[in-house]
């Protein structure tokens, strides 16, 4: 199987779906001739034509509304929002239309759309190229929310998202596009070439929505993470030697509650790690669920290791980013209890 970066894996997933289903279209800002600012749609317009892959005006609300209308017709549009930070002008169409259409129409209409958006920091993008707004979508009933952490999952989850008949918000941690990132900006950047999950089948396969992955088994403490933080958690565990079980949630809604609960019941301790701001972040829901389901197994408070409740500050990227050091501290707190 070929080794792919996450960009290549996403490109391959889009290619596969364009090839299999004439009702799949891709549009967004700069995704056509240019191939996307992160190159995820590179070569697709050339291969499938301007009718299948095209640029839109700079209007996230317009492109999402267009996708909802196309979905009602029977197409499966894939929209690229250039940065997750810029999804807000389209928020109304997602919350008020896409998420509710099936419900409010008694099942007559629905929005089988996939919304791709690069998220997270680590590229010195400042406060408007670094956000992780997943909790603003997991709170909205009717939306599914996904975030892969490696090339294999990215392609498999993306194909599942496109084939899903409900709207899926597909967040791509931009810091992982071209290599895994363990949260040590000072160390030389690593590429996907050496990473086990870089093996990506050329053709069609799926990673189901709603299924988490145990990326490291352990007995001392459970770490719930997704996206970039999966790699940071692995680094923290390696560096501390703590025997943690690390779960890559992959899909935030629906959540794989059983995998989470089984692990925490086993370890009795839980650390939740995400890059988003803490207050009312997705980690809050995880903490609430874990204590609801595992209360009598918990030996220490659930610890949240997150971005701070501030905008992502340009110069202080690494003071903001919840790196291995902060995760390690969180692990220790969870163990001391």
């Amino acid at each position, binding site marked *: 199987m070929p080794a792919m970066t996450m960009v290549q894996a996403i490109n391959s997933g889009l290619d596969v779906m364009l090839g299999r289903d004439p009702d799949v*279209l891709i549009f967004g800002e700069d995704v056509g001739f240019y191939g996307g600012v992160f190159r995820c749609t590179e070569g697709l317009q050339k291969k499938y034509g301007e*009718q299948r892959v095209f640029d*839109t*005006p700079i*209007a996230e*609300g*317009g492109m999402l*509304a*267009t*996708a*909802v*209308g*196309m*979905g*009602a*017709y*029977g*197409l499966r*549009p894939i929209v690229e929002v250039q940065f997750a930070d810029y999804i807000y*002008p389209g928020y*109304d*169409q997602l919350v*008020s*239309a896409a998420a509710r*259409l*099936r*419900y*409010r*129409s*008694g*099942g*007559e*209409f*629905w929005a089988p759309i996939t919304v791709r958006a690069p998220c997270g920091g680590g590229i010195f993008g400042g406060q408007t190229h670094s956000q992780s707004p997943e909790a603003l979508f997991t709170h909205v*009933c*009717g939306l*599914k929310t996904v975030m892969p952490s490696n090339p294999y999952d990215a392609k498999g989850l993306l194909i599942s998202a496109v084939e*899903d*008949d*409900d709207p899926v918000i597909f967040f791509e941690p931009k810091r992982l596009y071209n290599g895994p990132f363990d949260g040590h900006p000072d160390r030389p950047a690593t590429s996907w070439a050496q990473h086990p999950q870089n093996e990506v089948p050329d053709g069609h396969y799926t990673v189901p929505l*709603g299924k988490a992955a145990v990326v490291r088994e352990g007995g001392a403490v459970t770490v719930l993470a997704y996206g970039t933080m999966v790699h940071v958690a692995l680094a923290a565990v390696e560096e501390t030697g703590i025997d943690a079980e690390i779960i890559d949630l992959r899909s935030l*809604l*629906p*959540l794989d*509650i059983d995998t989470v609960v089984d692990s925490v019941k086993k370890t009795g301790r839980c650390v939740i790690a995400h890059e988003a701001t803490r207050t009312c972040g997705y980690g809050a829901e995880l903490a609430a669920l874990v204590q609801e389901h595992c209360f009598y197994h918990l030996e220490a408070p659930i610890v949240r290791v997150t971005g701070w409740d501030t905008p992502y500050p340009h110069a202080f990227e690494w003071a903001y980013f919840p790196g291995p050091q902060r995760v390690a501290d969180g692990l220790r707190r969870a163990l001391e209890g």
Partner: protein
Amino acid sequence: MPPLDPPLDGTSADQPHPAEGETPRLKLHIPAHQPLPGQRPDFSYLPRLPAGTVERPDIGVRATETHHLAYSLIRVLDDDGKAVGPWDPQLDPETLRRGLRAMMLTRAYDDRMYRVQRQGKTSFYMKCTGEEAIGVGQAFALAPDDMCFPTYRQQGILIGRGWPIVDMMCQVYSNARDRLKGRQLPVLYSARDAAFFSIAGNLGNQYPQAVGWAMASAYKGDRRIAASWIGEGSTAEPDFHHALTFAAVYRAPVVLNVVNNQWAISSHQEIAGGETATFAARAIGFGLACLRVDGNDFPAVYAATKWAAERARANHGATLIELFTYRAASHSTSDDPSRYRPEDEWQNWPYGDPVPRLSRHLTLRGEWSPERHKQLEGELVDEVREAGREAEKYGTLDQGPNYSAKTMFEDVFKEMPWHLRRQRQEFGV
């Protein structure tokens, strides 16, 4: 105030521009509407635009050649009820009678449902009184499978397309036969089999969705076009801008209608920007074709819509149509217009009532009579009463029966995820 020629707040072109230095202080202009409740209705600011005077361009003309039409008003029926001018669609009497009947049925339906809401049988209702020629006339001009993305005030489309009013009533009652399973506010219908899209509660959402649907239809080499409606007040929402932008860029086969009924709840169209331009003129800046039509003139509405539909179907792109009308009833059952406008404004609307106007036209042609009109009115009241009786057999909001509450957990997703299954258990039943 005249919509096309705004007074420049005391410093109009005629007056000399203040010399350097003596610049006046800035002032904030807040549009203030007259007349107020208790005052006499006054539509003297409306330019009198006679019927039959606006030329009808070929449907293939460049959009720019339609732009002056944004400042005119397409009218077919003159004050005597004669159909005049190039926009007369020359519809046969049978079609016109069917149109008249659908308009009258819409009005009778509205009257009853408004009443049953007042009786407490449901929570909410909205009439389209005075605007029947729009929903019905446009439904007649479009192909039955052209996809409509309406607002809550185009029930005339469903009735014009012959959708059963019993089904409409069941939705208003949220009863056991409500196709929307009791989930949606009354009047927010959805009727896929009538090519009628689920009505949004959030103003404007449907407008760019219609453009997306039309783009999909064009992508598939289909022949069906889309049409959408928005109120003049809602043109201020982002989705209006998105629809015009995307329709222009991708030359989408869509008919974009702005229903200018003068009011947005309590705010007059001036607050929506009607003081300085018409809503049809919004098309100009996008290079879209535009028409402005008397919304109370059935043949004119039909003809303008037909023109726009043919233009779209021939791959000439979208047309923005402003339908100039007046919201005769309250905004909704929650509203009290006597707080913000003279009670009898509607009776003084210079463009009349679409129902008697069409009736008069048919009568003039010897195809209708006051007697037949009266008789039909009676028949429709009975028809609606009958339908109401049947619908109420399936339940009302206050008395039931309704769907099982358990169903509220369905259709959030295609398949119910664990957390909703667990919540349904928690809910019990």
